[in-house]
């Protein structure tokens, strides 16, 4: 029981990270209908940017951890947003409206570029970082098994919720959000009605990338090590989360992320760590077979 509670805490933390990445997938898919394959790698770049920023700040002698984290969050999200903007501009915009497979291949190419860019520029070795926020609270102690809720986990969950809150406000209550939803429905019509579709799509990528960078920072804090390859697996799982939640649905993405995080943690805890990815992917397959539009996706009977 205590063990299960501990796994629940760990799973939720991990799920938050997946959820943050999944939001980026779901937004881009919703608006231009493509799998932004490079999104996982933007997350990886975000993690590297966080690493660089945290190291830089400590070299500069900044000793306040909250301040360092806040600065890093802004820095990583900002630069990652620039990555998101550039990627869309360079690799996807010239292909908009063309052949469906072309943007997908371009995205795969971009993913390879980002991965190898990180490898070339920052080295292939794993980068460890000393834990920034040690300690935590002991929730209970059952027969010698202590259920820990670390400060780190609290910080991750709270930050994620705060970021998601801001983001939800952005897409539901601002003109930007309205433009995004309009483009989602009918890009051509939105354009005719005076919405700058190019700008809206750019902003979608920018926001998605910023959220992915936040996830990157959280990942770095939580695991303490990163390398250039973390983007692929995390990306596939986050996409799984987006599909699981119903692609195009923002709350669905977060829910899907939580589901994947929980499945992965519980599977690792009770069955086998080696097959945790198999569990996540198998869930994806099973859900898609029985629930082809995901948990919160809109059902669309194909009109004939």
């Amino acid at each position, binding site marked *: 029981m205590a063990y299960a509670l501990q796994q629940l805490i760990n799973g939720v933390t991990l799920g938050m990270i997946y959820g943050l990445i999944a939001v980026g997938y779901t937004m881009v*898919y919703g608006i231009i209908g*493509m*799998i932004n394959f490079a999104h996982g790698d933007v997350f990886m*770049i975000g993690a*590297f*940017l966080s*690493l*660089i*920023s945290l*190291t*830089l700040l400590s*070299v500069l002698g900044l000793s306040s951890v909250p301040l360092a984290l806040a600065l890093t969050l802004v*820095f990583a999200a900002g*630069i990652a947003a*620039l990555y998101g903007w*550039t990627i869309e501009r360079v*690799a996807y915009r*010239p*292909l908009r409206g*063309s*052949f*469906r*497979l*072309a*943007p997908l*291949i*371009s995205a*795969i*190419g*971009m*993913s*390879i*570029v980002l*991965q*190898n*860019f*990180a490898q*070339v*520029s*920052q*080295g292939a070795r794993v*980068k*460890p*970082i000393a834990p920034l926020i040690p300690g935590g609270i002991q929730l209970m102690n059952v027969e010698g098994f202590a259920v820990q809720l670390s400060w780190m986990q609290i910080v991750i969950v709270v930050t994620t919720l705060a970021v998601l809150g801001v983001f939800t406000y952005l897409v539901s209550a601002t003109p930007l959000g309205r433009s995004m939803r309009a483009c989602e429905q009918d890009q051509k019509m939105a354009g005719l009605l005076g919405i700058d579709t190019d700008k809206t799509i750019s902003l979608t990528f920018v926001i998605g990338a910023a959220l992915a960078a936040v996830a990157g920072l959280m990942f770095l804090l939580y695991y303490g090590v990163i390398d250039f390859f973390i983007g*692929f697996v995390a990306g*596939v799982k986050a996409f*799984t989360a987006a*599909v699981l939640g119903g*692609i195009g649905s923002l709350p669905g993405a977060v829910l899907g992320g939580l589901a994947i995080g929980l499945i992965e943690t519980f599977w690792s805890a009770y069955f086998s760590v*080696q*097959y945790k*990815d*198999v569990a996540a*992917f198998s869930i*994806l*397959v099973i859900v*898609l*077979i029985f629930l*082809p539009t995901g948990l919160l996706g809109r059902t669309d009977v*194909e009109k004939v």
Partner: protein
Amino acid sequence: MNPILKDAGISALVALGLFGPMIGLKTEASATGLFLVPRPLALAAAVAAVFFGRLVLLTWRGRRPGRYRANRGLSEALKRSGRFLTPVLLAFAVVLPFISGRYGIDLGILVLTYVMLGWGLNIVVGLAGLLDLGYVAFYAVGAYSFALLSQTFGLGFWTCLPLAGLFAATWGVMLGFPVLRLRGDYLAIVTLAFGEIIRIVLLNATSITGGPNGIAGIPRPTLFGLQFSAAGGPDTFSGFFGLEYSPTQRVAFLYYVILGLALLTNWVTLRLRRVALGRAWEALREDEIACRSLGINVTVTKLTAFAIGAAFGGFAGAFFATRNAFISPESFTFIESAIVLAIVVLGGLGSQLGTALAAIVMIGGFEVFRDLAEYRMLLFGTALVLIMILRPRGLVSGRTPSVALGRRREISAELVAEGRG
């Protein structure tokens, strides 16, 4: 200010933002924790490269507005020259072992393996319009089936080859059956997931597959029972024909094996296109709903495409295993699927000639830049993006009708659907 200069200046600023932290500050691990190594020169070089690259690009583009028309010209030129390009390529492929050294033959084997994989995947993606991002799974199934069959039962290459294809096809049906109802991108992501699942299983089922250590000592193929070895007895190739043994003989033999397999794939595909099954695949790519209204069993038709594509992937996998004599899960990562898919798309969906050319260009080009080491993949990714921007429809677009009352006339790519499955 000159608009071109201004644009290049902005690009350089963006590059500074992108590269500043990643290139300008390298994190290094040490015993006491991380420290930073500033690299101002590398950063300046990267930013300058973007600035001048953009400058050159914009100037060039300003001079040549008709870029896209020129592109269509290339596709048509390739297509028209196809009639003699095909025999020339074929002749070259046949004589290659005689005119080239060991390195050339090895490269030829590599290219042909990808040509074969490309042709196999072309059945699924190009003809049936089903987006498969996990094709490498079948390659892996073929390779491991052969390796395990030969190790457990001592079967030879020629016995195992059809079995490997059969296993891969069976997997294709098993994986395909539940997911073929899914449309487009869902199918893509599920096939990708299957590819990863198979790789993880291979990696962890250590007792059977050897886990990360893989399987070594896979037997080499024989020519009607003749082995390629230095022993020189009457049951070896050199001994039987009274030749002097040289390792090139074995490599050349392997080369002809993969050439034969690739040509078989090509022949079967071309034949399939002209019979009811292949036409149904293409119809499925065009309009699945219309197919159903005509009484075509969509699931079965998709499954056959999946299974036949998988079988050829399995053949290629068996060949890969016998050629390398060693396999491990590392050879079957997602990147392989991505490369093969890129070959198919770059070639122009459904085009056999295009796929072959694309494989030559991509794998050959990849080999040319061998010395660049880790920069090679960076270049490869960039090339993928560039190629898609310049030629989203691939090298050879358009479609040749499978049957005609009069003369077969090309169908322009604009009319041909790419499938949603």
